[in-house]
């Protein structure tokens, strides 16, 4: 049951991801990204990591993609297809990605080919919360510094410089 669910979600994720990176319309790509991320969240659910799946939907779909769309808007990204979304590098990039996939895939299959995941349901928020506050206090705190720094940094960068402001006023 979970396997089937996982397979479906996974297939959707892969298809959506491929569209994200090949779509000629950037806004479409962003929307397909929503689908891909949602599908991954589905996969999490199938693996009984419901809390992670929830956070994934909340943070990614709810926040990150919205941010991206805003950015697209602000950078006046054209909604119509672009003539040149990829450069001549694309085939080469594809080859590199394929080789990497082959190496990694082979390694993974060789290493974990016989392992099975037993369906256990401990993906509760309680377990994760316990972990965070019992064993992972330090990274959690550091993460808060990171968020703050990133926030302030983003704000600082988004402010107009005084000279630019003056130029605008002129």
């Amino acid at each position, binding site marked *: 049951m979970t396997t089937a669910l996982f397979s479906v979600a996974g297939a959707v994720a892969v298809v959506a991801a491929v569209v994200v*990176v090949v779509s000629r319309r950037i806004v479409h790509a962003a929307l397909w990204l929503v689908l891909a991320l949602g599908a991954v969240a589905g996969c999490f659910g199938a693996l009984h*990591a419901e809390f992670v799946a929830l956070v994934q939907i909340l943070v990614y779909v709810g926040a990150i993609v919205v941010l991206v769309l805003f950015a697209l808007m602000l950078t006046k990204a054209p909604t119509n297809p672009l003539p040149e979304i990829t450069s001549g590098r694309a085939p080469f990039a594809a080859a590199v990605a394929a080789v990497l996939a082959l190496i990694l895939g082979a390694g993974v299959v060789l290493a974990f080919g016989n392992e099975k*995941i037993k369906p256990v349901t401990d993906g509760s928020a309680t377990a994760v919360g316990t972990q965070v506050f019992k064993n992972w206090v330090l990274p959690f705190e550091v993460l808060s510094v990171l968020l703050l720094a990133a926030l302030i940094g983003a704000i600082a*960068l988004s402010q107009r410089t005084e000279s630019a402001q003056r130029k605008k006023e002129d």
Partner: protein
Amino acid sequence: MPLVLPLLLAVVLFCIGVYGVLARRNVITMLMSFELMLNAVNLNLVAFDAWRVDEATGQTLAIFVITLAAAEIGLGLAIVLLLFRGHGHVDADAARDLLEHEEAS
């Protein structure tokens, strides 16, 4: 469920992300590809967590990674906007102001 299933999915997603990063010119699309790669990471973490029957260490790290991604994308988009303000576009491979000058001699 075989463990390789999520792992292979992660590999595929990761490599799609790599392809996107290397091939797409638009910085925002590149950022989206990064998100795909990070999702692959999370998939791995959750899968291993489920396999290990652990104390949800993997899931915890996955949560951290999601947060980290949010921070990254926030700052990244700020930089992208700044780039757009300066250059008028957001093409990664067209921003080449900093290319060094040829030696005079």
